[in-house]
């Protein structure tokens, strides 16, 4: 720790030196300060002086804007190389101070965005999410009136561990609150959404009477399209209630397949035995057995077909309930303009989510890049100044 008196002495002596340099003479009353003044004047007087011819030559070059020498082909070649080297040096120096930190942040940012989109698009899109799959698959309903809560379980959601190609029956129930005067329009859109996603309406009923109204739809939607279809349906009007159920029928399916294979094998065996039957009685017995096996095969085929239908298509029940408040749905009350506003809002929310995730990764990476750049700069400076050590 420097003593205040020392600091005052340093300041006084430095001021004396500055005074001597300004006045050109060492006249301080303090002998030490005067010695420093004399030293300063001596050092300044001892400064090397340039050759006037060199000064004139350099002045001419400055006034000409440092033109490249062009006396000979060799000189021109050297000049070109020098310009190339100068431009290589100049580029980072001109933009480097700004460009390097920006690149340090921007390049990781760009990479992250590319990786995120390559991995299946921004969160909230069809490729993302998938949460709650096991919950839905294990059955039970919920009361979360949001589109996100309606995410169906992943198609191969877990009912039977380590079992591939699982067969799952899925059913969803949606209750939407719709203003009475908008009931018909929303009903039409339920049908349109179902068709758009490759599904079909198994049954429907819509009532738009003055004394009350409502609607019920029983839909079958391909499980592959279930996620976007549910999202679109939930976007038609506020979701009052939703529930979802899932039932693993893989075992039933596998059992039916095994039984069908066994029945077909038995049928082939019976046919071979029929060809080889030695007596009419024996042939007749085999035919009766073949009829039984044939009936069993048909039954099993039908059972498998039914299972496939139930697992390939999810049952979605949509109930339209009159919204007494008349607030309208997410897109139910205001027509195309409100739809556009809602879509824009969803888009912004999606991008905000992406941005937050990107920043969560890019900021640390950018900080690391910045630190590395600063460290490299410091090392370069130390290396250069090592010439003075």
């Amino acid at each position, binding site marked *: 720790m420097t003593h205040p008196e020392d600091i005052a002495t340093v300041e006084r002596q430095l001021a004396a030196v500055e005074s001597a340099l300004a006045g050109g003479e060492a006249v301080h009353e303090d002998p030490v300060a005067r010695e420093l003044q004399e030293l300063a004047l001596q050092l300044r007087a001892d400064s090397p002086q340039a050759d006037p011819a060199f000064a004139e030559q*350099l002045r001419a*070059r400055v006034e000409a804007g440092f033109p490249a020498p062009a006396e000979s082909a060799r000189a021109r070649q050297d000049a070109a190389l020098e310009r190339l080297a100068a431009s290589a040096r100049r580029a980072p120096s001109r933009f480097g101070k700004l460009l390097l930190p920006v690149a340090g942040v921007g390049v990781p940012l760009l990479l992250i965005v590319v990786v995120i989109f390559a991995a299946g698009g921004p969160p909230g899109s069809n490729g993302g999410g998938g949460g709650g799959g096991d919950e839905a698959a294990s059955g039970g309903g919920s009361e979360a009136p949001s589109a996100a809560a309606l995410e169906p379980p992943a198609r191969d959601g877990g009912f039977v561990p380590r079992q591939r190609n699982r067969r799952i029956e899925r059913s969803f129930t949606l209750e939407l609150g719709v203003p009475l005067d908008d009931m018909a329009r929303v009903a039409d859109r339920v049908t349109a959404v179902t068709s758009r996603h490759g599904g079909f309406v198994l049954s429907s009923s819509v009532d738009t009477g003055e004394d009350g109204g409502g609607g019920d739809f029983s839909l079958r939607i391909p499980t592959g399209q279930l996620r976007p279809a549910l999202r679109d349906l939930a976007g038609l009007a506020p979701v009052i209630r939703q529930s979802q159920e899932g039932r693993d029928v893989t075992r039933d399916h596998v059992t039916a397949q095994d039984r069908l294979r066994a029945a077909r094998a038995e049928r082939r065996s019976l046919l071979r035995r029929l060809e080889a039957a030695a007596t009419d009685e024996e042939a007749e017995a085999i035919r009766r057995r073949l009829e039984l096996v044939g009936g069993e095969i048909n039954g099993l085929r039908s059972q498998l077909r039914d299972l496939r239908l139930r697992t390939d298509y999810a049952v979605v029940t949509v109930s339209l309930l009159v919204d007494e408040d008349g607030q309208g749905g997410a897109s139910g009350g205001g027509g195309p303009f409100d739809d556009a506003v809602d879509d824009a809002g969803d888009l912004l929310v999606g991008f905000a989510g992406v941005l937050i995730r990107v920043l969560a990764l890019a900021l640390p990476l950018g900080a690391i890049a910045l630190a590395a750049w600063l460290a490299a700069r410091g090392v370069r*400076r130390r290396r250069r100044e090592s010439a003075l050590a």
Partner: protein
Amino acid sequence: MPVVPRTDTDTFADLYERTFPRVYAYVASLLRDRSAAEDVTAQAFERAYRKRTSYRERRGSREAWLFGIARNAALDELRRRKRRARLEADPEDTAAVGADDHAELALQRELVRTAMTALDGRERDLLALKFSAGLSNAEIATVLGVSETAAGTRLHRTLTKLRKACNDAS
């Protein structure tokens, strides 16, 4: 905002007129070699001319910016030529004693030059920036990348060390 516009060679010429003797003196003090000092001085001005649009006023005076370039060029030259050993050696006579110099003055000059060998390269650099380049403490601070107070303290410490070396030698 660039102070020296790209096309304004007159402004750069003004800067040259104002600083050339000091840039040369500083570089020569550092390199202790007239020929190398001329090369590096020319190189420094050319670099400064090429980079003149990169100058930012908020980072310090134009002189400090120019001397930063000159210093880097001189240090690069020192490194390239591996002249560390020459820095430690007695300096070349870059400013010959004139015929009209008094004997006492010449003696004093020689004394200071001898005492300078007691300083290391950084201390000589600091003295050169102050007395050959004629920079203020604030400008020295900008060139060295330290605070003005630190620059002043270092300068005082170096001057005191040089004074003691002179007294010891005399």
